[in-house]
Every structure is written in structure tokens, then in C-alpha cells.
């Protein structure tokens, strides 16, 4: 059965182990200033230049919450089809670390701002729903840098206090492909909403990965391990695969899994235990007395609902229904908000079918080659629409269009100008074409004879000759028509 081939299982002899995965995604909220202070959140600034007295936890400094971050969390919650809680509470999570200046992280523990929701994944064998447990707001920590000074660790607090959304999934994921699809879908939804830029290189999206294994068919969950702070999909997949195998090996040897926090070493491609038991964490959560409960009335939430744009799932549905796209095509075009915008811009002013083909074909290949985002494309949506229209109205052929596209890719120029400058306009005047055709016929009497005797294949030869004579500009359809008339 094809379904089972796709299943992700760890095999040992004749035994099959299922892998249970849950993700705690930390998504940096897109905002100008931090969650509880007015310092900037910009990435890549000089160390400790975006740090306020609040972020560095000076004595007597107090948190004041950023309204926009609350709205962003609510928006994201709505995007995850989740329940928005009218009352939520900020708690302190107490632990000591060099890059945690307060000695606690302000987070939400028992009463998060967003409750249960769901995300739909488009898997090759159909849709799969992944449950969302909760979404809460919390502060990011600073950064400990271990590789500049051989004797010491250096601390940069630029990130300290930046708002994060922690999105906790239910343990519904079963394979590395699902993990990939889930992260991409979350990222896509948040980018549509403008609540997180999803930039994994800059750490805007990281995840703690919970992994457990059980024999296929069992219903009880096994003991899980949490792999902390993995910052790319590839590493998540590597870490899960390593960790699942490690756990299965332990079980196979008759051992049991310790519930613990582990670290993924990207160089060695292995996970290892992060903390000794003696140091077991006890975060001593309690409501932050510097903040009051966050109470949101329905009006506030409803106002935000009005700002929610069309999200990927709806958009996909619309593309299929309105534009007659295949689910596959629709998926590709909606998965990234910028791509979908580009597509809609192009198709609005040209032909949907051609737009789909050109974007998913030529344009994607170009972006891929250049390793750039669609927003950086040298060919604007406006110019691609023009190019498509030039094909549509017969000004150029599809073949010439490919040449024009290449010139556009290098120069960013308007295709109309390129066609004009290079004289690429299609030869569509029947009288002019007749002249060329007459010449080709008179130059090749032998072939004409052979054709007339039944060598049909030679028709292509005549077309080729005409195209050659016209420097490729002859309108192929017209050439066909006239040739047929003349030769028959």
C-alpha cells in the first residue's frame, strides 16, 4: 500500500517504531520595539547597542507591555484557528543564566493569550490536521558568545526582551516530512499575517523539538526528550532522526528513556544531554507582580479580526475555484505570501494559465539559480505581465519570449522595449511572409517536388527555412497557413 511506504518508522529487525513529534516553535514577533521596553528589535546591530535599562535589568526597572505585540499574538492565534483568551497572565520563569539579566524570563504559564487551535498540512497523501496546544508571549534572552574570547564568555543583550511567540503543537507530527510541512506552513501563515518574518538564519524562527518513540500500534505515549533551540528545518530533521534512533536503541537494549533536555550538536550530528540531574530545573513560575493580568474585551479582539488578510488555505481554495488551477499549482503559488502577491499581480493583468506556467517554470528556475527571493526578482510582476501579453497578442512567439525573458533577467528592462530595440517583433504581415515563402519555394525545387510526392515530413524543413530567413521572427502560425496553401 502506498500509504505505508510513506510512513516514517524506525526499524529494528522485525520491529517497527513510530516516532511522535511535538514542536515548540519560538517565533520572533515583528515589531519595532521590544515586548516590555522601548528599545529597537533590529537584527545585526553592534553588540549591546539596543539595550535599555529595562532590558539589562537595572535595579528598579519595570516592564511596560507593547500593545502591538499583543495584537500580533492575537492575529497569529486567529491564523491558527485558535481560541483567543480574554484574560491571560504574565508569569516569571526563574532561572539563572548569563544572558538572562533579570534572573527570570517573563512568559505566560498557566494562562496563555491564545488557546487551542489547528494547522492544516498539505501532504502528498492528502491533508493532515496538526493540533495547536497554545500560543503565548514571552521575552527572548540575550546571546552568550563563546568563541571570541578563549577564557571568557561574552554577553550581548541586544535580543534581551525581544517579543517571542511560543507556539506549542500537540504531539501530532509523525514524520520528518510533516515537520518540514508544519514549519513551512506556520511560517507561511505568519508571513501572510505580518506577525513574524520567519527568517531562520536570523533566528526569528527556532524550535524546541519533543521526540518520543513507541512500538507501532501502541497507544500510550513514550517518555519524551526535548531537543532545545534548533534553528533550521534540516537540523530539526537530523536531530529527530538521531534522537528517535537513540531512543529505539535504548529500548531495544531493555533500557528506559530519561525525560530530559538535550542539545543538538550540528557538527557531530548528534543530540546530547544538556543538564545534569543534580541541576534539575525548577522554574518556580509565579505571576509577575510588576504586571497585571492582561484583559482583552471582545471589541478589541474583533477589531483585530477585521485586519486578518486572506490566508494561504483560503487563497488556495480561491485559486483553484476561480483560476482553475490544480491543487498542486495552487499550493506552490500560495505557500509564500510574496509569491502569491506576485502571481496575483501578473495574472490580474495578463493570462492566468500563462502566468502560472511562467512563474512556476522560468521565474522559479531563475530565482533558484540566483538564490534570491521573489521580492528581489529582476523581473517585476508588471514586466512579466507585459511579456505574457506580448505572447498573447502575437507580438512575439513563445520561443522569442524565452530570449526576451533572459534579457529581462539580466537587465530588468521592460519587455516591450527589448522587443523594439532588438527588433524581435514577430513578422505577421502576410504579404511580407509570402515573399519569403515564395523565395524558399523557388530556392528548393527538389524538396518541393518530393513533398508533393508525399514526403510530408519535409513541411518542417520549409518552416525552418522561413524562420531562418526571417531571423526567427516570422509568426509561426501564419507561416504554417501560407505554406500549406502554397504547397498544396
Amino acid at each position, binding site marked *: 500500500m502506498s500509504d505505508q511506504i510513506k510512513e516514517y518508522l524506525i526499524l529494528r529487525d522485525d520491529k517497527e517504531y513510530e516516532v511522535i513529534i511535538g514542536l515548540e516553535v519560538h517565533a520572533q514577533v515583528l*515589531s*519595532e*520595539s521590544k515586548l516590555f*521596553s*522601548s*528599545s*529597537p528589535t533590529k537584527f545585526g546591530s*553592534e*553588540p*549591546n*547597542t*539596543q*539595550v*535599555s*535599562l529595562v532590558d*539589562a535589568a537595572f535595579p528598579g526597572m519595570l516592564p*511596560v*507591555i*507593547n*500593545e*502591538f*505585540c*499583543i495584537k500580533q499574538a492575537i492575529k497569529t492565534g486567529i491564523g491558527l484557528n485558535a481560541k483567543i483568551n480574554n484574560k491571560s*497572565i504574565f508569569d516569571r520563569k526563574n532561572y*539563572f543564566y*548569563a544572558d538572562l539579566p533579570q534572573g527570570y524570563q517573563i512568559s505566560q504559564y498557566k494562562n496563555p493569550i491564545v488557546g487551542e487551535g489547528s494547522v492544516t498540512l498539505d501532504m502528498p497523501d492528502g491533508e493532515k490536521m496538526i493540533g495547536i496546544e497554545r500560543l503565548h508571549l514571552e521575552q527572548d534572552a540575550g546571546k*552568550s*558568545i*563563546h568563541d571570541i*574570547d578563549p*577564557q*571568557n*564568555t*561574552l*554577553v*550581548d*543583550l541586544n535580543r534581551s526582551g525581544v517579543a517571542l511567540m511560543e507556539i506549542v503543537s500537540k504531539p501530532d507530527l509523525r514524520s520528518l516530512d510533516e515537520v518540514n510541512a508544519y514549519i513551512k506552513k506556520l511560517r507561511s501563515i505568519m508571513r501572510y499575517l505580518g506577525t513574524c518574518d520567519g527568517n531562520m538564519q536570523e533566528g526569528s524562527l527556532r524550535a524546541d523539538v519533543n521526540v518520543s518513540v513507541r512500538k507501532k500500534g501502541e497507544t500510550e505515549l513514550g517518555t519524551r526528550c526535548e531537543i532545545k533551540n534548533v534553528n533550521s528545518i534540516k537540523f530539526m530533521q537530523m536531530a529527530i532522526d538521531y534522537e528517535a534512533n537513540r531512543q529505539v536503541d535504548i529500548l531495544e537494549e531493555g533500557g528506559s528513556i530519561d525525560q530530559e533536555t538535550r*542539545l543538538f550538536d550540528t557538527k557531530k550530528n548528534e543530540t546530547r544531554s*544538556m543538564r545534569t540531574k*543534580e*541541576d534539575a530545573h*525548577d522554574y*518556580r513560575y509565579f*505571576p509577575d*507582580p510588576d*504586571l*497585571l*493580568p*492582561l*484583559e482583552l474585551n471582545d471589541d478589541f479582539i474583533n477589531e483585530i479580526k477585521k485586519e486578518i488578510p486572506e490566508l494561504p488555505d483560503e487563497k488556495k481554495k480561491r485559486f483553484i475555484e476561480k483560476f482553475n488551477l490544480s491543487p498542486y499549482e495552487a499550493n506552490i503559488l500560495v505557500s509564500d505570501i510574496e509569491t502569491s502577491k506576485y502571481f496575483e499581480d501578473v495574472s490580474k493583468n495578463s493570462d492566468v494559465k500563462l502566468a502560472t506556467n511562467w512563474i512556476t517554470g522560468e521565474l522559479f528556475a531563475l530565482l533558484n539559480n540566483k538564490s534570491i527571493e521573489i521580492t528581489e526578482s529582476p523581473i517585476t510582476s508588471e514586466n512579466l505581465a507585459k511579456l505574457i501579453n506580448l505572447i498573447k497578442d502575437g507580438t512575439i512567439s513563445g520561443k522569442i519570449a524565452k530570449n526576451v525573458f533572459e534579457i529581462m533577467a539580466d537587465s530588468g528592462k521592460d519587455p516591450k522595449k527589448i522587443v523594439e530595440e532588438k527588433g524581435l517583433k514577430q513578422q505577421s504581415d502576410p504579404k511580407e511572409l509570402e515573399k519569403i515563402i515564395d523565395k524558399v519555394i523557388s530556392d528548393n525545387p527538389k524538396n518541393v517536388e518530393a513533398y508533393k510526392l508525399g514526403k510530408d515530413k519535409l513541411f518542417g524543413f520549409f518552416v525552418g527555412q522561413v524562420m531562418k530567413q526571417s531571423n526567427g521572427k516570422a509568426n509561426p502560425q501564419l507561416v504554417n497557413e501560407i505554406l500549406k496553401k502554397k504547397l498544396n
Partner: protein
Amino acid sequence: MTIDLKTVKHISKLSRISIEEEKAKRLTNDLNSIFKFIEKLNELDTSKTEPLTSVAETTLKLRRDKIESKNIREDILKNSPEKNKDFFVVPKVVE
């Protein structure tokens, strides 16, 4: 409920405060007398009472998302017992 020496040592670890054996013993006694006094709360039935976390008679005020702080790195680092021009400096952390 009594607090033993082991518990005191565990709490001292959690609080990141090292404690000598002698002091730990004395502290164990102190804490026991304090907790004996605290246990008085058990006389009360609070099963139907909502906890009170703040007496501030107001709602949480929300700040506009606006950058208002400047680069004050010098101020931030000025009081640090160990720093360089750009960073706070702590003993090497091995993860």
C-alpha cells in the same frame, strides 16, 4: 512539615547562593521556626477563594510600539564588574 538540611542545600542551589555546612544547619533551624509560624495558614479553608495577585486598582496599560530608547551601551556597561568595550564578560560557559 519540617525542612531538613538536604532541602536547605537544594534551595541554596536553586537560589545560587553557596552555603557552608554550619550556616546551613543554623538556617535549617531558622526556617523551621519561620515555617512553623507560617503553617498557621492551614487553619483556614480557602478551597473556594480566588487567589489575589495584585491590589493595584487598575488594568494593564498598553504601550505604543515606538522606539524611545537610544544606544546607551556605555551606560549599560559602566557599572559592570567585568566588561570590555562591547560586552559583559563572564567566566567561560561550556554548554
